[in-house]
């Protein structure tokens, strides 16, 4: 296990090296002065420019410049946003939790809907319900998220008026920012309207979370169906059946558990997909997350923000991958022998 951990950590370090190299080179590729792209200080006075050049070691060789850049990032200094002129670090700390919250809820919804449906399809392999679920999954997978989001707003917010269309919570509620994750902040706050706020926040998250969850859910359907079919074909299931265990016992005690292990591996991979979908969805539902912020930064040509935003997001997704690898390894001892990162 120690070896496994060490391998994953070195993989992390090297990937981060490549990522920072990429983001470092972006400063040169973007139009404008490199040091201004690094720092985002578009209105710097001559004396400030001299200081910046010194801080980023711009007069030295490329390698020294890179080291200076990485040391800035490691100390948490991502520069300033060119558009708002406030530190990017603060903006990310404020916005990233909202994206994590949305993605986690969406992941949960996707798993809770996708996995059971996939199992049902596998158990009824090659029957009508199997085909129905599969074609539904195909349909769901083909719907583009931006269209689905707008449609959901049109039907559920404007048409039926059931659910709100924008934001994280009604602006009437004042929730102090502690962790950034709205639900936790609401529970921590001492507002007299705590429970109203909680239900309001839940109502706000339903639509975006479901929209984000649709595509991953269909993938979970297919994954869990394949895993279940595979498990049901194994000899230990046949042996269990020969022993006279009931159908229920076979499925719940043996098949599901073994199939789930296979699926958990893919959760991490799906998370990257999910965050991408969440970025588009955040724009549609005015969700105050990092995806919307990043897309706005692209529209405003805010190079410093694009650069740092990409770095933080990819780093975040990579950490999730490694975490799921660990969980998988903890659950499945066979995987620990895996020498290379997968």
């Amino acid at each position, binding site marked *: 296990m120690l070896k496994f951990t060490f391998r994953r950590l070195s993989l992390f370090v090297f990937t981060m090296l490549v990522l920072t190299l990429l983001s470092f080179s972006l400063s040169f590729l973007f139009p404008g002065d490199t040091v201004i792209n690094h720092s985002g200080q578009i209105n710097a006075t001559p004396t400030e420019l001299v200081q910046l050049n010194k801080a980023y070691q711009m007069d030295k060789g490329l390698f020294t410049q890179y080291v200076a850049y990485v040391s800035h990032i490691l100390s948490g200094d991502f520069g300033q946003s060119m558009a708002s002129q406030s530190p990017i670090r603060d903006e990310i700390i404020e916005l990233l939790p909202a994206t994590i919250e949305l993605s986690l809820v969406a992941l949960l919804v996707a798993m809770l809907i996708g996995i059971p449906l996939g199992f049902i399809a596998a158990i009824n392999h090659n029957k009508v319900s199997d085909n129905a679920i599969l074609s539904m999954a195909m349909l769901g997978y083909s719907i583009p998220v931006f269209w689905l989001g707008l449609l959901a707003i049109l039907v559920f917010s404007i048409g039926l008026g059931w*659910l709100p269309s924008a934001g994280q919570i*009604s602006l009437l509620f004042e929730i102090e920012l502690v962790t950034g994750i709205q639900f936790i902040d609401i529970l921590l706050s001492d507002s*007299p*309207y705590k429970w109203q706020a909680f239900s309001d926040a839940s109502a706000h998250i339903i639509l975006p979370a479901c929209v984000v969850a649709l595509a991953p859910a269909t993938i979970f359907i297919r994954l869990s169906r394949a895993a279940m079919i595979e498990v049901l074909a194994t000899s230990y299931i046949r042996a269990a059946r020969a022993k006279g265990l009931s159908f229920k016992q076979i499925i719940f005690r043996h098949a599901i558990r073994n199939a*789930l292990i296979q699926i958990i591996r893919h959760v991490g991979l799906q998370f990257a997909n999910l965050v991408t979908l969440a970025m588009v969805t955040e724009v549609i539902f005015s969700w105050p997350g990092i995806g919307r912020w990043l897309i706005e930064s692209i529209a405003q040509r805010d190079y410093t923000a694009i650069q740092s935003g990409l770095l933080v997001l990819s780093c975040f997704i990579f950490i999730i991958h490694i975490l799921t690898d660990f969980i998988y390894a903890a659950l499945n001892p066979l995987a620990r022998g895996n020498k290379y990162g997968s």
Partner: protein
Amino acid sequence: MAVLMMNCKTLYYLTITTLVSVLTACNDSDKLSLSERSIIYCSEGSPETFNPQLSTSGTTSDATSKQLYNALIVYKGKNNTLAPSLARSWHVTEDGKKVTFYLRKDVSFHQTNYFTPTRLFNADDVLFSFNRILDNNHPFHNVSGGQYPFFESVRFSELVEKIEKINDFTVRFILKRSDSSFLANLATDFSIILSAEYAKQLQHQQTKHELDIFPIGTGPFKLKDYRVGSLIRFYRHDSYWQGKAKIEQLVYDISPEKRNRLTKLLAKECDVSSYPIAHEKITERDDLTLESITSLNVGYFGFNTQKKPFDNKLVRQAISLAINKQAIIDTVYQGQAARAKSLLPETSWAFDNKTPELGYDPQKAKALLSLAGYAQGFTMDIWAIPVQRAYNPNAVTMAKLIQADLRKIGVTVKIITYEWSTFLRRLSLGEHQSFLLGWTADHPDPDNFFTPILSCSASESGNNRTFWCNKEYDKLLEKALKTTRVKERKEYYAKAMMIINEEMPLLPIAHSKRFQGRGNDVKGNILESFGGISFYNVSKKPLNSKVGNVILPEITDKASN
């Protein structure tokens, strides 16, 4: 492994039950009563500052003037007559050079977590508020840039000689000359009263710039929270001198995207929405109301009279005759505007019904063009504003319509547009040949249309981008300001309009209406008769009769208790 399974199962049921409970909780009566005492207003942008003295942008004064502050006097009623506000009454001497205000003695300033007032409003506050603008050496003059665009445009410092404090509740303005628009200027959204005591505190703490960021005023609401680009939260000012407002909380949801504002209004996420689009969609819903007010503004097509070929009066007349204004109003304003007969809206008291309107006559236009020596036509550019304004909701479409109209008389048009600030800068340099722009009046006095748009002084420094300068016209305006007799003033302005009609430095196109969408449960007047908005008189009708019995904790401001 079994544990994992168990968790999965319980989680599953838990989530299902939460989802169900959440869905039902939306109709919970508790939620209604918080929203019942609050208003969410979807506004179109962030204010630049919280002090309307510093900006002429409508977004800024909408968010601040009538909410946070009061002026000495206000416009009231349909006829826009002057009425007392912070001043109980006022008196103008015979020669019009001394104006005395008698102040109210029961006005208190906001108490917030950054300031606690120890005294009531008095003459010192009036002196502070205006001396800040007038006196270049005032300690607060250069805080926040030292620019007071409205007061500069009406040449306030050239008009006011000094302000005297007679006693604690009497203030006298001494003017250099009589000016009939002086009182009108004091009643605008920009002439608000700040707290001198708060300023002193800030000066003491060496944080003078906070005066315009953390505002203190006498208005019906006080600032609680502001997040740039996201929201402004106001709480009710409980000891407001006209009695406290009916709603306890006022939230400005800043949504610059117009489709977003419409969605929020339709989904009832905001109670009131500024400048809505898709008017039919709102009118066909029976739980929403669309209201409008003809605001005092004008959208016009101006010519650079310093540049060829528009230095020729005949060309200007020809081009004006060739433009089908009604088509523009139907297309660009979707019929929601009044066709402009002259610079001044017909709703103004100074509008003379006999003012002739230049019609649509392409034949005559062609004849005039050949008379001017342009029988073969020419090529010109039109600069269209890149932003949406009430007086011109879509300048590029308007430019395209004009382009099509002018093609018929042989004139080729190139449409040019820049990013807003670049546009204004290049316009002031006079790089354009013709341009689409507009003007929103700050107060109902007719002078506010004539002087800032077309006077000689405005062509040097102000908003006159036609660079047209006519001595006779300026003289008429001057005379109109000197007299206080309404009939005489009306005559002068009628003559001025005749000159514009003859010289055609610009073609007035439309006076637009300001629209606002709101839920039917929102009661009370919001749109003021010219331009601005006020939430003081607004209340909300309970949607659900059951709610009345539920007793809930008051929204409390921790700092004030």
